[in-house]
């Protein structure tokens, strides 16, 4: 990566440039208006009464050979997005194009040949490994199912793969329960990479791994990318890992993408307040800094429900900059700086998009208490610089009492047993 160090205040016009030079790669996967809603049914008649809007209208593209990182709070829809773009679950709306082909509605049968090219590494290694099969047979399944005979035979190739992910031949005949958590995770990685797919959606691929093996696996994925031009979508909550591996990063909040940017830009000068909060909360491995919470923005307030997400900007119930417009109008995802798209009326490190709207919501005032002093100091500087009258916003603001009231109890919608899910996952990855 060779980004020039950018300064925050570069006043280059907000004209959306075409993507920056290294990004002029071909688009491998394109997603438009993607939605996945899980119906909530109730009563004997199982009528649908509401829906969990796990993914609620997202657009992005993944370019050939790049690594796209996806981050966001637990429950914001990352795994669902991953399962939908790999067509392990059907989308409720929107479209998915892979290599120019519309795969949104392809049947299982028509998807089968594509399974070789599109692989998923599951977040839950235990749930995705068939407990009755040895590791040898689990990792060799893709070869069998796709009828591929690697050079030197399947067994040799499988042992090579296992070795690449740091497992040894003595593991070949063992069953999933005889492995440690991190070992299981690597079995899933070996299986997904077996057929050298074009696109790998990796859901928390290294979360259970210690740093050393994490590094080994990250480097392995890196090597394969160099060698074979693999494309990755890596879902991870660990921002330091994402930073390390990603060319670009999508930040999700409650089923939406709120910021989508080149990795270096995102980490140098995040524009969405939520991104900023996420990054400020990363613990640093240094006991001397223990307890120094003042640099952190701790998001308080409940994570709103994806059943009835807040109006306007979904983050307005927790954002310390929220004003009236945030509550009423959903900010579009715009490329405010080259290589940096953001959905916010009052972005950080950039010109205010709604400067006339200065009255803070009362929820925002509460949130201010939670913002670390360092952040506030910085904010104050910015406010002075831009001469915005934000400090004078003492008028009583309209209370942001949008109590999220999702009506009904969530009832077991699909009575898919975990075991069935396992079988399904197993099948779909194996196909």
């Amino acid at each position: 990566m060779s980004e020039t160090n950018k300064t925050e205040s570069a006043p280059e016009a907000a004209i959306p440039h075409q993507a920056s030079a290294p990004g002029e790669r071909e688009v491998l996967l394109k997603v438009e208006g993607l939605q996945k809603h899980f119906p909530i049914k109730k009563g004997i008649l199982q009528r649908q009464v509401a829906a969990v809007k796990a993914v609620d209208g997202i657009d992005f593209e993944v370019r050939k050979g790049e690594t796209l990182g996806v981050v966001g709070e637990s429950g914001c829809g990352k795994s669902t997005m991953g399962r939908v773009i790999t067509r392990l679950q059907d989308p409720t709306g929107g479209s998915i194009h892979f290599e120019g082909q519309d795969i949104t509605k392809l049947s299982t049968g028509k998807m089968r040949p594509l399974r070789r090219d599109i692989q998923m590494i599951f977040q839950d290694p235990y749930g995705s490994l068939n407990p009755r099969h040895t590791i040898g047979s689990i990792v060799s399944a893709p070869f069998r199912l796709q009828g591929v005979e690697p050079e030197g035979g399947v067994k040799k190739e499988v042992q090579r793969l296992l070795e690449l992910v740091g497992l040894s031949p003595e593991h070949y005949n063992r069953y999933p329960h005889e492995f440690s958590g991190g070992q299981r995770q690597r079995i899933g990685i070996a299986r997904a990479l077996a057929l050298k797919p074009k696109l790998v959606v990796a859901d928390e691929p290294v979360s259970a791994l210690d740093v050393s093996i994490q590094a080994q696996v990250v480097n392995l994925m890196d090597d394969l990318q160099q060698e074979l031009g693999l494309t990755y979508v890596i879902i991870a909550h660990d921002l330091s890992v994402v930073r390390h591996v990603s060319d670009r990063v999508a930040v999700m909040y409650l089923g939406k993408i709120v910021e989508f940017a080149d990795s270096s830009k995102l980490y140098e000068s995040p524009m969405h307040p939520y991104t900023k909060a996420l990054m400020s909360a990363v613990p640093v491995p240094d006991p001397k800094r223990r307890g120094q919470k003042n640099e952190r923005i701790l998001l308080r307030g409940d994570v709103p429900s994806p059943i009835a997400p807040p109006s306007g900007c979904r983050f307005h119930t927790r954002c310390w900059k929220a004003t009236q417009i945030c509550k009423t109008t959903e900010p579009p995802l715009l490329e405010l700086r080259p290589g940096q798209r953001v959905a916010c009326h009052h972005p950080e490190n950039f010109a205010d998009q709604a400067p006339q709207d200065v009255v803070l919501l009362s929820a925002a005032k509460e949130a201010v208490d939670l913002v670390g002093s360092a952040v506030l100091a910085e904010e104050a500087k910015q406010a002075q610089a831009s001469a915005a009258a934000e400090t004078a916003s003492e008028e009583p603001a309209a209370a942001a009492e949008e109590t999220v009231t999702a009506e009904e109890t969530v009832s077991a919608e699909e009575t898919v047993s975990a075991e069935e899910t396992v079988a399904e996952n197993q099948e779909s990855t194996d196909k």
Partner: protein
Amino acid sequence: MTELNKTGAAVGEPTAAHRPEAFLEVRDLKVHFPTDDGIVKSVDGLSFSLEKGKTLAIVGESGSGKSVTSLAVMGLHRLGARGKNVRMGGEIWLDGKELVNASPDEVRRLRGREMAMIFQDPLSAMHPYYKIGDQIVEAYRVHNNVSKKVARKRAIEMLDRVGIPEPAKRVDGYPHEFSGGMRQRAMIAMALVNNPELLIADEPTTALDVTVQAQILDLIRDLQKEFGSAVIMITHDLGVVAEIADDVLVMYGGRCVERGPADEVFEQPQHPYTWGLLGSMPRIDRETSERLIPVKGSPPSLINVPSGCAFHPRCPYADLPKGNVTRTVRPELQQVDGGHFSACHLSPEDRTRIWTEEIAPKL
């Protein structure tokens, strides 16, 4: 904490010499699994102790025996399908009771109430056909004589405390309807529902983003403050270790290679494996985007454990100590100072020099 464990003691021989003073004391623990390919020595002579109100972090490579150790403390190796094939040795003393040789019933009574565990794999610990809430209610009612209604209230309260949005609705959801991180939190709620005196948290925050992680760590601190609980925190996230641990124990190949107060282990790590661990860590406060430096080589076989120091095939300094000792003699834990121990043949001078001149500047 002064024992130098005798290696080679017969597995399964109780030597209940004296009751320890510490709340939890593990002595020369061994957990071996016979398999077709040989005996897997997952834990092979591990000793540590833990006082009430304190937190011990166990770190170490994937497959080094962290989870197997915690399952041993919980008495879970001898249960069900797992129990067919395990050989255990050594002693585990919890609050004056020895657990390795106790009857399964005795251990079961302690489990849940006196000691509880957050499992690394939430799905393996939850029943797929039962609602999340019912599973927590069940865990609560086993040890508390209360009505279902009261227990349900408690379950909702716990789900709320672990940050599940709209807990009153989510309480009736099934595990597959929860996201990965939500499942993990539901399991934390289940483990904490009885305010255990000993909490073993096996990678409790792996699936959680930093905000929720901070909330969970606070919750664990609260438990400690309120009930004086002892906590074993297994994690590969050194950020979490730095934040919460009083002591750190570093495992490699089923044994402890370094142990000591957290500050000292971070500032003056003494073992080459610990150095490797610190060097391969991505940090957000660091500028580098070069490749991470993993500890080179593969994890050791636990069936044919390398001779001498188990780390020697991967250790850049294996040839430094004279006379090939690293390959022939197993280094025992030796005191560095105070409560800080390390198992390595390097001389203290060499260690200090390598750390200050070669390793520390690169971190």
